C-alpha cells in the first residue's frame, strides 16, 4: 500500500512538472526493494543502477516507446507482449518495417538473474544488452544517437531522467540503465507450482504425476530445466535437426563443437509462449513433448540425454499439465509491467 502511495506521488509530480515550474518541494527519487520470490537467490544490481522508482518508471516508458524504433511504430513491447510472458506468438520475430529476425522471441521473465544475455550468451549485463535490439536492423533498427535525439523531445521522459540519473538529457547511459532497471522488475515466481511448493495451492493428480515425471531420473528434464528458473543457462544440441540452418552457439565461438547448441530456455510461463524451440518450429507443448519422446533427429553432436523416452499417452498429458502449472498469472497481468498509458 505504501508503495502504491509513493507511486502516485511520483506520477503527480510528473504531471505538474510538465505544465510549469510550480513545484515548491524538490522531488526526490526513492529506492525500490523488489520482492524476490521464495526459493530464488538474491537479486544483484550494478552499483550505478540500483533500483529506484524513477529509474524503473523511465525504463517502463522507454520499453513501450515507439521513438526508440526506426519506423516510429515499433517498441520493445511489440515483440515482448506481457500477456504472452513477453513473447509475441510468432514463429520468428518481426521488427521495425516488418523485417524478420532470425529466431523466436524469448520470454523476459527473471532476466535479472541471467548470467548472460542474448541467444549466444555473449552479453554480460542487461544494461549492455539494451544496445543490441536498438541497433539490430530486424528489431528496432535505429542508431542509438538518433533515438537519443527523438526521445529528448519528451519532457515527461526528461523529467524522469533528471530524477532518476541526475542528468538533464537522456543519453545512451541513462536509456540503457533505465531499460535494464525496468526489466529487472520482470520477476515471475508466483505460479501454481510455486504456490504448491509454498503450501498454499494444490496440484491435480495429473499435474502431480507430470511433476514427478519432470523431475525423474528417467526423463531428466530438470537436469537442464533446473529450479528455480527452470533453466541452467547451458547450451545444448537437442537434435532438433540433423543439419541446423542456424549455427547456434557456433555463431559466437566459431567452434564446430558448438554447432546447433542453443541456450536452455526457462520453462516458466511456457504454456503462454508458443510456438517453441529457438526457431518457433514446434507449435504446441504436445508437439514439444512428442519431439523429446522421439529422442531427437540424431544430430551427430546431440546431447546423450536426448533419447527415446517411450512415454505413454497419459504420461505425455501429465507432463503438459505440469508445464501449465508454471504459468504465473500475476506476472502476465501485473500493471507495473504494462504500458503506462493503459
Amino acid at each position, binding site marked *: 500500500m505504501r508503495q502504491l502511495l509513493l507511486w502516485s506521488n511520483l506520477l503527480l509530480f510528473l504531471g505538474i512538472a510538465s505544465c510549469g515550474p510550480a513545484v515548491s518541494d524538490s522531488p526526490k527519487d526513492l529506492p525500490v526493494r523488489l520482492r524476490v520470490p521464495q526459493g530464488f537467490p538474491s537479486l544483484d544490481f550494478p552499483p550505478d543502477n540500483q533500483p529506484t522508482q524513477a529509474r524503473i518508471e523511465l525504463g517502463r516508458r522507454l520499453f513501450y516507446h515507439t521513438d526508440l524504433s526506426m519506423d516510429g511504430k515499433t517498441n520493445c513491447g511489440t515483440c515482448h507482449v506481457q500477456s504472452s510472458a513477453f513473447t509475441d506468438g510468432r514463429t520468428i520475430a518481426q521488427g521495425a518495417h516488418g523485417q524478420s529476425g532470425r529466431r523466436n522471441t524469448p520470454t523476459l521473465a527473471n532476466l535479472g538473474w541471467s548470467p548472460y544475455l542474448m541467444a549466444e550468451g555473449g*552479453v554480460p549485463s542487461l544494461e549492455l544488452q539494451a*544496445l543490441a535490439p*536498438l541497433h539490430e536492423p530486424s528489431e528496432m533498427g535505429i542508431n542509438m544517437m538518433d533515438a537519443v535525439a527523438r526521445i529528448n523531445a519528451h519532457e515527461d521522459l526528461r523529467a524522469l531522467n533528471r530524477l532518476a540519473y541526475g542528468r538533464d538529457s537522456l543519453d545512451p547511459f541513462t536509456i540503457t540503465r533505465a531499460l535494464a532497471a525496468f526489466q529487472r522488475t520482470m520477476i515471475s515466481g508466483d505460479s501454481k507450482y510455486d504456490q504448491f511448493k509454498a503450501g498454499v495451492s494444490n496440484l491435480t493428480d495429473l499435474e502431480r504425476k507430470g511433476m514427478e515425471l519432470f523431475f525423474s531420473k528417467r526423463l531428466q528434464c530438470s537436469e537442464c530445466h533446473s529450479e528455480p528458473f527452470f533453466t541452467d543457462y547451458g547450451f545444448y544440441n537437442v537434435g532438433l535437426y540433423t543439419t541446423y540452418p542456424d549455427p547456434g552457439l557456433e555463431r559466437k*565461438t*566459431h567452434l564446430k563443437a558448438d554447432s546447433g547448441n542453443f541456450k536452455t530456455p526457462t520453462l516458466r510461463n511456457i504454456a503462454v509462449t508458443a510456438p517453441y524451440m529457438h526457431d518457433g518450429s514446434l507449435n504446441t507443448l504436445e508437439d514439444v513433448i512428442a519431439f523429446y519422446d522421439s529422442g531427437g533427429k540424431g544430430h551427430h553432436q546431440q546431447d546423450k540425454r536426448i533419447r527415446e523416452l517411450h512415454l505413454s499417452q497419459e504420461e505425455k498429458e501429465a507432463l503438459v499439465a505440469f508445464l501449465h502449472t508454471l504459468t504465473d498469472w500475476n506476472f502476465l497481468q501485473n500493471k507495473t509491467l504494462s504500458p503506462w498509458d493503459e
Partner: protein
Amino acid sequence: MVGCKDENTVEEKPEDTATSGTLTLGMGAKWGNEDFVVEQVYFDTYGNRIRVDKFMSYISEIHLVRADGSEVLLKDFYLADFENDVNLNYTVPSGNYVGLKLGLGVPAAYNKHEDPAQYPSSHPLSVAGSQGMFWYWNTGYIFTKFEGKIDTTGTPGAELLDSFLFHIGDDPYYRELSFTGLNLNVAPNSPASLQLNIFVDQILAPASGTSIDLATNAVTHTSELDVLATSFFDNYAAAIAVE
C-alpha cells in the same frame, strides 16, 4: 568517386608551456607511392579490380618513447577513418624521442565486458564515437573494418559486383607495434612532426607473409583460429611505417 579530402587538423592539447613543444602526428593511407583514396578502383596483385568503401581502425595507447625507455602518452584511443588523412597535434614535453609505440585495436582491459554507454559521446569508445565499431549482439569492439567491392574479371569499366568484408576484433588480435630508431627533437618554437603511413596494397600483398586474394577470401567476421583474420591483421601490422 570521392577524392582524398583536405587534411584535417585536430587540436588535442591546446595548452603550451616553456618546457614543451608541438608535435604533429600525421596519419594517412597509401597505395604504393600514392595517397590511397577510398571508393577509387585499384588493381590488386591478383588482377582483381577492387574498391575499398570503408577502412576504419582503432589505434590505441599511442606513446612517444625516450632513449631511457620512459614514455609520453599522446592518445589513449583513436578511431581512424582512412577516408581522410589527419594531422593530430599534441603538446609534449621538450626533449629527444627515439621511438613511437601504438596498439592496433582496443586493449583487452577496455574491449569486452565494457559498456560503450558509459563514455561521453565524444569518446571514441562511446556509442556515438564508436561509429558502429562494436558487436552489440556479442559485445566487444570491432578493431578494424575493411569493406568494399570487387570485380574478379579485372575488366576495366566493368561493374564491381562482389563484396568483401573484413571485420576483425577480439583480444588475441590486439597488436602492439613499436617503431624505433627515430630522432625526434621537440622544443618550444620548433614544431616537430611524425608521419604514420598505412600501405593498403601491402595489407593484401605483403612483402613477407600471406597474400590475400579477395576473389576467394572475401569475408571474415573474426573467429578463433581464424586464418584469414590473422593474415589480414598480421599484414596490416606490417604495412604501417613511421617517417
